[in-house]
């Protein structure tokens, strides 16, 4: 076991822990263009109070929203090889990583925490879309593998909250391999009959959608979230035709059988707890 538990007990105010995004600014809703005061938005879990649009929710806020009493402990970020390809495009990947770390205060685009939900021990992993588009490379893949292993060792369910543009192409083939590795992570849960619930938020695309995101025992999506394998632009260019209304949105995926339920962020914690109650309350198997 290479887990160090860094208990943070974040009984702190929103403003204090999220210094990077002061809540006393005004934000514009990307859907209805309404200007919303930061504190109001934070109080409303970053759901637009005017049109219900679900904006991106940062990992810490997601954890506080989900865990009992806003208490949880982070799982240590995994150690992985940095920039394994020595990748350079117009700028180099290392500097991209550096600025993403400064911006987000996280090591990479995935962070997991252990805590309780409705009294159940549970591991929750959250993707950080602000970290290079939530893209999945070694660190994300290994983070998910380790979160799954931790859940299996503790015999608790795993909840993964996705938000990703897909694979981290700067890590080349090694990022592609994370599709297999995160699938294996999910398999550990299944092999142990522990629940794995996928919560798909806007956007969940590419290699992330085509691996662990689509393999939940139960699949929840936030309203209007974009959930796609191929990008709409690529498809449009390929087929040279317009795309249907609502294409690749959560509601579209539900209609097409890929999502169990669409849950408003305000109801998410309660619904997850009910699901944990249901999946945990199995009758004792016969003698």
């Amino acid at each position: 076991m290479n887990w160090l538990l860094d208990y943070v007990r974040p009984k702190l105010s929103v403003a204090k822990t999220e210094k990077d995004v002061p809540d006393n600014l005004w934000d514009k809703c990307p859907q209805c263009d309404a200007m919303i005061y930061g504190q109001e938005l934070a109080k409303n879990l970053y759901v637009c109070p005017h049109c219900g649009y679900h904006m991106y929710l940062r990992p810490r806020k997601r954890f506080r929203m989900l865990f009992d009493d806003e208490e949880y402990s982070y799982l240590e970020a995994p150690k992985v090889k940095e920039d394994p390809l020595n990748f350079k495009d117009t700028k180099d990947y290392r500097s991209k990583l550096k600025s993403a770390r400064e911006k987000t205060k996280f090591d990479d685009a995935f962070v997991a925490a252990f805590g309780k939900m409705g009294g159940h021990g549970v591991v929750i992993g959250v993707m950080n879309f602000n970290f290079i588009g939530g893209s999945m490379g070694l660190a994300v893949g290994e983070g998910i593998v380790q979160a799954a292993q931790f859940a299996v060792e503790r015999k608790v369910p795993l909840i993964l909250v996705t938000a990703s543009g897909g694979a981290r192409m700067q890590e080349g083939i090694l990022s592609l391999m994370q599709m297999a590795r995160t699938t294996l992570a999910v398999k550990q849960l299944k092999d142990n009959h522990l629940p794995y619930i996928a919560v798909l938020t806007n956007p969940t695309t590419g290699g992330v959608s085509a691996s662990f995101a689509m393999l939940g025992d139960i699949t929840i999506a936030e309203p209007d979230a974009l959930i796609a394998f191929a990008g709409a632009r690529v498809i449009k260019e390929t087929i040279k035709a317009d795309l249907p209304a609502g294409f690749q949105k959560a509601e579209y995926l539900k209609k097409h059988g890929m999502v169990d339920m669409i849950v408003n962020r305000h109801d998410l914690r309660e619904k997850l707890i009910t699901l944990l109650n249901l999946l945990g309350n199995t009758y004792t198997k016969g003698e």
Partner: protein
Amino acid sequence: MADKTIYLDFEEPIYKLDTKIQELKSCCDDKLAKDFNKEIANLEKKTQKLLEETYTKLTPWQKVCVARHANRPHSIDYINALIENFMPLAGDKLFGEDEAIVGGLGFFNGQAVMVIGQEKGHDLESRIRHGFGMPKPEGYRKAKRLMELANHFNIPIISLVDTAGAFPGIEGEERGQAEAIASCIMEGFKMEVPYIAVVIGEGGSGGAIALATANRILMLEHSIYSVISPEGCASILWRDGSAVKKAATALHLTAQDLHKFGVVDEIIREPLGGAHRFRDETVKHAGDVIWKHLTELKKLSPADLAKDREEKFLAMSRIA
């Protein structure tokens, strides 16, 4: 649900009495009402007797009509009344979400269960949404997925059968209606959890048995379960669509017939006058009977549950 009682053809005398009672009750002021009280009581006694006479001697065809009655409690009514914290689950993870099958997890007397039911809808809008209770292949594949999920987490399954049959259309054939039903039947046999099927209304042929390869098969008193609809049978064998009554009788499709054949384990009594008249009592009583069987099945080991189901069906037509 439906506010007004819908009367079936053979309920004409009951309808007349009910109407008269209603008139007496509403068409007079409070003072007069008192004078009518006796007459109303008299009429109500008559109605009761008529209901009794009618519903203890329903012909097979009348049972077909009762089983299909629009006011009869549907899957959603059972779920609403019996299941707490119901979490509906959607989709087959392959092609689509078919609301002809409603399914999900919930607590039944504190026990987590997976409910999978065919839902006909209760008004035009909901009937269309639920595909008139005739599942397409994606509906059966959704049912199969929910069975797998239940089995994986050791959660008992309760299926509610209420369908005229699988959807007869191009898409259904195109997407493998036959394969979907066959796989759903097979999946039922793989379950290592208690699996109870309840025919609550119409058990229409292959579309019904897809959800009924269970440890226990229960039937509401006036529900039907048949290899073919009386209409279909009449038009094929009598070459006369109007021979439905003869066909209904010949097919032996009532709960009482099926119980005699050993196909059905227990008949769930309906209040006199039928489930559509006494929705709440019916559903509540059905819940009690289901719970009794679930309690019994919970005593069996996972392997024994599968074995029990296999033996039940292997023995089923060896009855001499």
